[in-house]
């Protein structure tokens, strides 16, 4: 009897299997990127970038060469809801759409400004296949649909190109943030810390970008480029920041890993370059007269990347001056960025969140009108300490004779 019970309970285990239907790889359409647009009449248009595996990998194993046909194919469809759009595309694709490897979600500027991201994200967030680690970007100047149809060289799959660009530039220059869906969702509608989403632009001829010729030249006519960051409020894009404003914002958010600042030296503009290799930003809040005051403390280490003036950086007196100047330059960048955020009346710097943690009671009072009334006028003190660790591989510039 006991034996029978054991067997039966053992067999019952088989019915617990979650994934019933197996699917062979050739039956799946591996979607690498999804482009979402608003059509204007209240409908959504989605463009799916489907990988042609044989054209990406597998030269040598298959008799057909890989470079002749494009690495991706795109399919578009429209509908009133995201689910319908996703289902409808099956009318056009011969394989089952597979979202587990969708690494990029492109939202058209119009959709981002008018409808906001929340509605779009809901469908994706519910889907068990779709990953919340999918990168989110906003396509500017063109529709998301056009954006995902453009072919890229170097990285054959356009979605990969975008992701790798984001990752590289975030760590190398620091004007763009590599945001995924989970991070955006975490901050959407959080008045004390609004999300920032990177903006990409399709430069050049959209039509040419769709042709394989585009990647058969050394200088593609259509190229994808990161051009700034979108400022969101309540899930909608309200403005954009770029250059120093976005770099300064990331500096406050402690997202700077490596970057460089140019310094003036004795009246000569951009005479020295301070390359940052390690950075730590601490933002603290204190309450003064029942109002929050924010102190931003930047500690940064780096090396001299370039010198156009005769200067021996190994001289401790001179390097001290360079360090001080670097600190001032960084302070300037950050102050400008803070001013920009205050001007836009959007707290994407996370000040409100910080206050919430420090003084929840005060925050509850200010929360309602934080972005409009309090954030723009809040007092912010910036202090930046820079240290020169190295001068690169040499101390004095080659050309200089009279070194200080």
């Amino acid at each position, binding site marked *: 009897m006991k034996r029978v019970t054991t067997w039966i309970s053992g067999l019952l285990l088989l019915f617990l299997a979650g994934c019933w239907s197996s699917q062979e790889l050739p039956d799946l359409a*591996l979607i690498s990127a999804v482009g979402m647009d608003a059509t204007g009449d209240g409908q959504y248009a989605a463009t799916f970038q489907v*990988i042609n595996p*044989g054209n990406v990998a597998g030269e040598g194993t298959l008799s057909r060469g890989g470079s002749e046909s494009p690495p991706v194919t795109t399919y578009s469809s429209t509908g009133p809801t995201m689910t319908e759009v996703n289902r409808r595309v099956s009318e056009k694709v011969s394989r089952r759409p597979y979202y587990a490897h969708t690494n990029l979600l492109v939202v058209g500027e119009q959709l981002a400004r008018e409808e906001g991201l929340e509605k779009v994200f809901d469908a994706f967030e519910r889907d068990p*296949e779709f990953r919340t680690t999918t990168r989110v970007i906003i396509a500017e100047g063109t529709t998301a649909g056009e954006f995902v149809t453009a072919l890229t060289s170097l990285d054959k799959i356009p979605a990969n190109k975008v992701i790798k660009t984001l990752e590289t530039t975030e760590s190398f220059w620091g004007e763009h943030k590599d945001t995924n869906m989970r991070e955006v969702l975490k901050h959407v509608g959080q008045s004390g810390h609004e999300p920032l989403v990177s903006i990409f632009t399709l430069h050049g001829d959209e039509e040419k970008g769709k042709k394989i010729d585009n990647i058969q030249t050394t200088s593609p006519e259509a190229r994808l480029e990161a051009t700034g960051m979108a400022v969101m409020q309540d899930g909608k894009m309200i403005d954009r920041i770029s250059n120093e404003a976005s770099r300064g914002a990331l500096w406050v958010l402690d997202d700077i890993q490596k970057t460089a600042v140019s310094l003036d030296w004795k009246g000569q503009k951009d005479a020295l370059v301070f390359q940052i290799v390690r950075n730590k930003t601490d933002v603290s809040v204190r309450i003064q007269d029942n109002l929050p005051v924010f102190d931003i403390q930047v500690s940064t280490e780096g090396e001299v990347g370039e010198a156009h003036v005769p200067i021996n950086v190994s001289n401790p007196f001179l390097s001290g001056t360079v360090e001080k100047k670097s600190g001032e330059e960084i302070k300037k960048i950050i102050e400008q960025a803070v001013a920009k955020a205050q001007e836009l009346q959007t707290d994407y710097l996370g000040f409100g969140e910080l206050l919430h943690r420090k003084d929840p009671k005060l925050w509850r009072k200010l929360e309602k009108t934080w972005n409009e009334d309090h954030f723009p006028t809040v007092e912010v003190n910036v202090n930046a300490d820079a240290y020169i660790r190295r001068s690169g591989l040499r101390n004095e510039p080659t050309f200089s004779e009279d070194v200080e």
Partner: protein
Amino acid sequence: MTFKLRKLSKARTTSSKSNEDEGAKTEKNEPLSDSLAQNVEAVKQKTGNSADISIREITLNDQAHTKAAVVFVEGIVDQQAIDDFLIHSLINDDDLKKNPADNILETIAEKVVALGELTRVHNHSELFQALFNGETVVLIEGFSEGVSTDTKGGESRSVDEPPTEISLRGPREGFTESIRTNTSLVRRRIKNEKLWVKSITLGKVTNTDVEIMYIDGLAESDIVQEVENRLNRINTDSILESGYIEELIEDQTATTFPTIAHSERPDVVTGNLLEGKIAIFIDGTPFVLMVPAVFVQFFQSVDDYYSRFDIATSIRLLRIIIFITSLFAPAVYVAATTFHQEMIPTQLLIVLAAQREAAPLPAVVEAILMEIIFEVLREAGVRMPKAVGQTISIVGALVIGQAAVQAGIVSPAMVIVVAVTAIASFATPSYNIAIAARLIRFVNMIAAATFGFYGIILTFIVLLIHLCSLRSFGVPYMAPLAPFDASGAGDTIIRMPWWKVKKRPALTVDGNVMRQGDNQKPSPPTDRTMK
């Protein structure tokens, strides 16, 4: 050596006892007659006048002209010894020549025969037993008993390096087909009177010599008794190889896992004896069985003990990873590509998808097909003569590696998976556990194709439960891991250095667990100059 081997007569008692119930007693245990002619005739008649039975008739003494016959089986005796020390003595001995007929047998037994062991035979059963054991029987006119002398000999293979268990560092000796050579190889390694050997004859037709060897005081006496009981229970016509006995005495028959270990190496058997295990030697095979066997034992290579412990440990870990690979690699591939595509990194998935793009067969069919083809190649390669074997491997490599991929029948990734699995299954030191894994691999593949990773986990759990339920002569198969035994755990998936292994594994050893003294860790003097 104070210890004495048990006399063959004892073995005879055992065997005749086992033959009793067969009704063979009446026919075989016919007593010898007084008449030499009758006895010789009986031998001739019962052996069907076999060509290799040699009967030499001689006259013993001058006066009485007592006739005698020297009977032996050609080929299994030491002909030189018979000529020099038996026949020569019988013909030329002065005492014998003058001897009257009535006590001639005593004289032969006590004075004439210049050979080691000597016994008396009284009936036909004993006579034939002695003959086919390589002994020489002297039958004398007027006596209803014969004198049997030990003249075992004949051709046998010399002690050679064992082909199935190569070691890089360690003795080059391997067992041969001769049981006495085999026991001597072990006895040379354990020079201690506590090394005991018990003899038993098995197989009603083959009368194969089987011997149990153990170290008294180390081997658990219950287990020794159990081994004897199980061997005595065997009632079959033939024992041709250790495999016969293995199958007849194992605890659990419904399993692919070996619960009895075997080896061709005397040093392996010695090591096992020192852990309280019992060795079973079978005449006619170089393989010696060792019981009880535990799971981890099959991952221990003899080289582990001869090389540094850190290196041995890492290699042993590698072997376990290899074993798991050989069990699960194709199953994981099938499950990942047909159920869990999200678990494969995007770039890898694209490469796999590109290969599978034109593949005509589902992944699981491809996997099973390739595995079967590989097994066929392996089987063909093993049995082929060396010259042909190479052809097989070249054809196999071309068929699997090149042609099948180029023809687009199978995907290159599948070939890699099969190849990795194949190599992995050969890297397990013990062949019989590797082949168990091979069989289970197919079950895993089917489970993976039906339920994905869930199926693999299910079979894994079933496998684990099964392994834990196995016993080898009462000792849990997964010991000393489950149940955990600290004294034995030092030599499982890791090998502790010798100076750390203070105790013998308690599960197989009878009480006497201390292996070595304290402070065995080498501690050279702090003064490094070594003045």
